[in-house]
């Protein structure tokens, strides 16, 4: 039941027009993954009740403000033999203070490790694939690619989304708009991420936003036909050059196949209020907000049902300057500030003060990241799902987690997770905090990030997914996280 229904002007018409053909079919299932580059401190997701539980479970010793999870045992949730499910007020968590009424459609999951990914600076493709990226080459498909390939997610016929996924990111140091560090179609087959807010908007919203954009799609059909004619008849002189031509040809054919769907989606969105073209060179969190607006529009208007949003992922966090919005971090380089995040044994005097100020500023950064994702959730909550009495949020799972465990040079021992929506898919949120026995104390009761991905890629999409990733013998337990979904 929605508390607030504000329809984007013309949006409901556009959306209904685009989706009316599928109203009688299974409603879409959407997935949005936001990854925080170089990791974040899971304390930002810990509600007061969570902290009280942990303190009690640790024999009265509270979780300190500093210290890391995992291999050095500095921080843990204490001895646990089963997951603890807490129902406190999520808005008491530092990053969730502005969650408002969405709290009831949100949950936090703590205690999941993903050691297969390696930790250190970034897990790259490993986060979403539960494999190890070696020298930039992914070890397996990422969950977004797995989901995007499912007919139940991408849709069929007139409900098929023109794009398999929207993948966007932010990298201040990149000399290129496109990166291959986060998503993968399979082992050794990375997928591209658009690191420019303008490029992402142009690709995903541009055709919907103007008659020029729509006209460009029409022109594109002829151009693709021209390319295809040359590629089909092209004889390459070697295997390697043949592979280059084949990849290009496959791209042309894939794009051609869905061009008509894109034109239909764009036409249906005519007259709707869409996000404006973003400006280049904005500070990182503003760029993230721009990306979220683009992704939100893409989801609501049926451009794609899967999205991955990264901020400084895959090692691209080094040069991020968070800017004036975040006080003491302004003018500083993210990599160096991350090094100074945790305490050293001999900290004293002004150094302690500086660390506290730095910590507070990073908490604000992560709160802002979460709220950028929440903005998508609010748009979806305010948009009815055609053919149902639900909102689009009920048919969308949004996930916020780290691309590097719990921070710089992590041991990949703790991947804090925040999730929203997905009620109609069977995801159980309800404002809960689920704490799984952590790596140090959990033993056979410990669970891993791959179990979470198995939940999303299994029962939530009506798939039987026995395993996910390549942890092999280091996987503690098979199967999804039973406490997270409604099996009915």
């Amino acid at each position: 039941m929605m508390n607030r229904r504000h329809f984007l002007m013309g949006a409901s018409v556009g959306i209904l027009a685009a989706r009316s053909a599928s109203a009688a079919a299974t409603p879409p299932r959407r997935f949005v993954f936001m990854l925080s580059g170089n990791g974040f401190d899971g304390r930002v997701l810990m509600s007061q009740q969570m902290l009280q539980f942990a303190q009690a479970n640790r024999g009265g010793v509270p979780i300190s403000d500093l210290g890391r999870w995992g291999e050095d045992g500095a921080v843990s949730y204490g001895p646990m033999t089963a997951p603890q499910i807490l129902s406190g007020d999520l808005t008491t968590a530092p990053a969730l203070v502005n969650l408002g009424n969405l709290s009831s459609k949100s949950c936090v999951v703590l205690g999941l490790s993903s050691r297969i990914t390696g930790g250190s600076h970034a897990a790259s493709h490993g986060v979403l694939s539960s494999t190890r990226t070696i020298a930039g080459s992914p070890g397996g498909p990422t969950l977004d690619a797995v989901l995007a390939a499912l007919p139940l997610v991408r849709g069929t016929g007139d409900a098929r989304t023109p794009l398999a996924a929207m993948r966007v990111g932010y990298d201040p140091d990149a000399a290129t708009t496109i990166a291959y560090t986060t998503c993968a179609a399979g082992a050794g087959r990375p997928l591209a991420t658009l690191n420019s807010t303008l490029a992402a908007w142009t690709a995903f919203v541009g055709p919907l936003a103007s008659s020029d954009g729509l006209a460009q799609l029409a022109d594109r059909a002829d151009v693709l036909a021209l390319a295809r004619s040359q590629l089909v008849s092209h004889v390459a002189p070697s295997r390697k050059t043949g592979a280059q031509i084949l990849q290009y040809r496959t791209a042309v054919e894939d794009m051609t196949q869905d061009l008509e769907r894109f034109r239909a989606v764009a036409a249906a969105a005519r007259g709707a209020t869409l996000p404006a073209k973003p400006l280049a060179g904005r500070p990182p969190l503003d760029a993230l907000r721009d990306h979220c607006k683009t992704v939100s529009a893409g989801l609501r208007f049926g451009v794609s049902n899967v999205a991955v949003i990264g901020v400084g992922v895959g090692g691209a966090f080094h040069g991020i300057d968070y800017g004036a919005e975040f006080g003491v971090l302004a003018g500083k380089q993210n990599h160096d500030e991350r090094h100074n995040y945790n305490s050293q044994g001999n900290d004293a005097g002004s150094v302690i003060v500086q660390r506290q100020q730095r910590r507070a500023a990073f908490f604000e950064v992560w709160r802002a990241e979460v709220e950028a994702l929440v903005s998508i959730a609010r748009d979806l909550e305010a948009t009815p799902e055609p053919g149902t009495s639900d909102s689009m949020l009920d048919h969308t799972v949004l996930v916020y987690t780290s691309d590097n465990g719990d921070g710089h040079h992590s041991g990949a021992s703790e991947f804090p997770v925040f999730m929203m929506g997905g009620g109609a898919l069977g995801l159980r949120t309800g404002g809960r905090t689920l704490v799984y026995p952590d790596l140090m104390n959990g033993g056979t009761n410990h669970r891993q990030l791959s179990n979470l991905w198995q939940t999303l890629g299994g029962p939530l999409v009506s798939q039987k997914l026995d395993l996910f990733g390549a942890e092999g013998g280091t996987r503690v337990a098979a199967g999804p996280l039973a406490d997270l979904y409604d099996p009915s």
Partner: protein
Amino acid sequence: MTLLVAYVRKMNRVLLVSLLVLSGCEGLVTTGPVPPGAEDGGTSACTPEQADLERQAGTYLQATCAHAGCHFPAGPRSPNLAAANLNALSTSGHVAPGHADRSPLILRMTTSDPLRAMPPTQAPAAGQPYVNADQVELVRRWIDQGAKTGCIEAPPPPPTDVNAIAQNTLFTCTQPVNLEPRYRRLGSPEWIHVFGGAQLDPAMAANPLSDSRGPYTTFSRDQSLDVTSLQLYLDVLANSRNFSAGPLINDWSAWYRDQRTGMVSYPCITDPQVAVTGIGQACRDQFIDALLARVLSRTPTPDEQTAMRGFLDQKLTAEGSPGDRQKTLRLVYEATFVLPGVLFQFEGATGGAVTADEYAQLLASALSTHTASNFITGYAPRPELAWLVGFRAAQDAGTLDTSGLRAQAARVFALENGFIGGEWPVTPPARPDLQSDWGNTEFLPSFFEHDPLRARRGRYWLAPRIAAFFREYFDYAKVGSIAKDVPAATSAFDLHDPTLHGPRNNIATWASASWRVFAGDDPTITQYEPYYDAQLDDTIARMVVTAERDNRDVFRALFTGTTFRTAASVGGDFIAGRPTGCDVDLCARSVVPNGANCCVDQQQQCVPHSIAADGGVVGMCATPTWEALWLGASFPYAGTAPMTDLHTAPVGADVVRDILSDPLHEQRWMTLPATERSGVLTHPAWLAAHGANAENGPSAVVRGYWIREHLFCESVAGLDLVQLRAQLGGDPTTSARSRLDATFGPAAAELRCSNGACHALMNPLGMPFEIYNHAGFVRAIDHGAPPNGTSTIPNWPGRGEVVVNDALELSRAIGDDPHARRCFLRHVFRYFVGRHETAADACVLADMETAFAGGSLSAALEALYAHDAMLMRAER
């Protein structure tokens, strides 16, 4: 899409409950009874569990251990732990099949000895093992079950580390092997220039072609387009209709519309007054032929002509009105850019010999970021492509057989011909090689006069692609975006101790603010003095050009040169009317501006201006914006900064002539004391680009890493597989050397980091540079002690242990080192060929080395491009 589908049987996990008792002697296993099932060394049929264990153990060992620089195929670390090589591992002596307790591999994984623990991890909590118990158990079970291999299809081996190939092998020619036929994908700058855009335009720069999966941007050449990059590519093509590329010379239609005279070619089709029905076949053919020749930079194939001609007809037929003619032609223009022949430049496309057209493109790519097609009628070619005039003439005359092509290469790479570099005369144009786009500045004074910055650059130049190689090889272009806390700390310019004057002092603030120069933040900033990276560009150009010209060794010059291009210092009267003469020290202490010692205008602050003869600092009042930024570019040197370059009217064409005729222009060349600088590795741009954020941070690690990989061609295990805290320990108030010793020295807790795969490879090479701070300033004092650059380098390839006193001695030693010289040539090969070298390239590398014996880089490049292997292609 594949998913891991094998069922994993529910396992009974046995926790490691205690540390193993180490055997007294951890040698390789040679004897001992073998349990049932393991007698035959793994050739009998496998049980499902054994197959599962082989897969899992292989996955773990490969992911954790088989990495570049460590236990890699053909790597320097034994044993090879790649999953594809488990059979060799199981018979290597490091594994006792059936007896995990006696296997050295398990002993290394379970030891509590920090010197021997594998893989390297940080110290665990007391009583905990170094390696995760689950992982040990996995490998233990595989061994106890007989260390079976062959149960599953072996996975493909991980990529070979190029640095694991023995360097001697790479320079020993035994069997000549030609390069393969190649489709060289255009790089971003080439594509932008072909299209007719400007690199500064963000819409054009958003193209996906700069994506490179390798260490150099040229490694993108073997890539193609996937669906996302294709979408981005098409979006950029379409969006480019709406931007202004600056001077009209860069408009897409410039190839047929002369912006200077207004003359429009091919009026039979370009004139919108001509109806579609009036455009004849011959006109259409002519237009398409000219368009393709312009874009392809070679003769189009009949197939390409037919396809584009058909597209043109289609679009003309669909034209709504004559007013749409420009739009129609624009669509046709864009469409050419999806032709594979445009996106990819062919090398040996027909198999066998490289054609003249292909060779023109190849040579163009060696010198320029423009393609061989960047000619506009009536405009002179770019300086590094001027050889194309003679090349095309020879091509038309039919004299370009293989020997003819070699002769062209010899002509191109001869310094005296002025294509690969040289020294520009004093009179304008200034640095036309730096002009990004088409045209000759004589025709575009309006373009040039807005760029007086180029007039302040040194006159020595290198062809853009060669200059780009040095930028990427030495990796210093990023210097402007690296934050530095108190850049002048510990140097002669570090005048204020924060503990005496408060935690935030103005100089530290300005110095920090001055470190980052973002072009575009304020256009006036970049119009006055080139920043560190441009200064090093010019310094390298001078080193290379003068060495080539004087028949000296280029490699040695790069590491011993002391003549640097510097920036002029700011002048207090730079802008007329600003008061000067403040006291930097007193002004920093005084909260209230008092006029005499500080600045009257409270918007200004007293900043260091220059060093007086008595060593004191002369202050000036300035706003802490662009002045501070300019300051940062002039102070890294211990000696007096160069004189001021004053212009009160920094706009207009006159300023260019003033600058070029200004004798102070040459005073920006400073020969620094040999006790202060020696070569590129002692230049502030390199030092800062490879320096930490803090003065006492791990700069030595970063610098040592670069040297190990780029001058010794030895890999250091990547941080991406290391689960370490990796924070510099020690007292944070002490020197970097002290902190590094505390973290990695013999008494350190993190001894695993010091093992041979990691910091032992880096730290000793970086310590000599501790005579400089993190920003490249010469240290005057280092936390109460004289700056100390001494270092014992235990693992210098070919020399063993080498002791140096400082970076100056290290740099000179590198300049004379044959191993480093060969490594440099390998990087030249990598960059210009756009891929890693292999053993099959040994004959090419050997010939490059022979050509480089006299120290001429141009000779080495000629040897590469004129090589038989380059001119004749065969699939390997």
